């Protein structure tokens, strides 16, 4: 039986943690953009224009129906293929993450938004509240409360999936893992430590979401 020796990998732990923070940064920016995409999508899907609603459906189907890796590759290669000389892999990768998970976020938010009972909106209107006020005070708080837990799940998935950006040379945690594996010649130890770091930040995301969810549902009896 082989003895695992983590010492060489732990010596490089500071490099791995720095790369992990970089991954987390990509995750946060990607998730913020995904939320933006989702919000815009929900707004479009509530419009009267059939073209707008159709466009949202096509977007969701295309981005959820193809692999994230393929989308990452397209966003990375496309600028060079059409002759844009320099395009940062960091931007290409983050945009791909945001659009892929944005489609999932959109569906979650739309489901929750349309799930707010119509009676609540009617009640607010009969109390003389304006449309905007109804949105901010009645529809949004109830949507947010339902949506936090599944959105946190998507955030965790997005953070894990940021490892795919290693393919286009974004120097995040998985790329750093490759370098350290080559330097230490300890592949299993390296990847176990990398996995542990992903697990650690993932748990923080999910525990944080539980806390936020509890705060947002305080009004519930």
């Amino acid at each position, binding site marked *: 039986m*082989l003895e695992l020796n983590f010492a060489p990998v732990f010596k490089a732990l500071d490099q791995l943690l720095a790369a992990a923070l970089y991954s987390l940064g990509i995750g946060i920016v990607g998730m913020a953009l995904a939320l933006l995409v989702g919000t815009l999508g929900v707004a479009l899907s509530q419009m009267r224009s059939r073209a707008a609603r159709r466009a949202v459906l096509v977007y969701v*189907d*295309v981005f*959820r*129906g*193809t*692999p*994230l*890796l*393929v989308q990452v*590759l*397209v966003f990375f*290669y*496309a600028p*060079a*293929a*059409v*002759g844009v000389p320099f395009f940062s892999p960091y931007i290409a990768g983050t945009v791909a993450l945001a659009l892929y998970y944005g489609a999932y976020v959109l569906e979650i938010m739309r489901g929750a938004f349309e799930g707010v009972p119509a009676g609540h909106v009617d009640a607010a209107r009969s109390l003389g509240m304006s449309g905007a006020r109804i949105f901010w005070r009645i529809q949004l708080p109830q949507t947010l409360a339902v949506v936090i837990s599944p959105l946190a799940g998507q955030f*965790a998935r997005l953070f*894990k*999936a940021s*490892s*795919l950006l*290693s*393919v286009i040379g974004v120097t995040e945690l*998985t790329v750093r*893992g490759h370098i350290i*594996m080559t330097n230490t010649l*300890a*592949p*299993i130890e*390296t*990847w*176990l430590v*990398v*996995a542990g770091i*992903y*697990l650690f930040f*993932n*748990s923080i995301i999910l525990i944080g979401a539980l806390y936020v969810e509890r705060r947002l549902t305080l009004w519930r009896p």
Partner: protein
Amino acid sequence: MKLDFQALFDPRQVTDNIDLLLAGAWTTIQLSALSIVFAAAVGIVLSVLRSSRWKVVSAAARVWIELIRGTPLLVQMYILYYGFPSLGITLSPLAAAALALALNSGAYVGEILRTAIQAVPRAQGESGRAMGMGFIATQVRIVYPQAFPIALPGLIGEVIDIVKWSAIGSIVVVPEATQVVSQIVAQSYRGFGIMFLTLALFYLALTGSLAALGRRLEKRMTRHRMRLAHA
């Protein structure tokens, strides 16, 4: 540089490489099918362990599921592909990719099956027992048939996810669809547009037909519920 759409969408790139592309598509289907079968097996085992009466067993299954769900599929594949040889187990790229996909998806499948079984009213199983059926007969004839339609949407989602994520096989050079296309595109940007368009349409056709199949299956399996609702 001027944009040359004719070159980017040159259909000759596809027709010239049609053999490679078809072989890649077939490998994607094989890799996905293999992973789906193993993921189902892993999921069934995990759901049984997870609902075990022995606390140690169910806790161990729970920890395993959390470990798998908390780490990236790509890193899991690297542990198998780069790490396992130092344990004396060398896996081919295809085996490493299939095993990683199966272990990853299996953790999700296990939870889908467990929650579906829990969603079947307890009285159903108890009635079966009261009628004199054995435990296994009750599970197989009464509980599982009712749990399956509940689990179905989640399971279809997992199948589609496996097909999509099988693309990461390309990273350890499994010659599947994404790998074939990236390799051709890496040689020349000529036909870049049409290559990735073809690739995307291939995945859309696969995931789209799986989703349609899932919806039909779901409708069939919940027919009895509809009939009750109309009565």
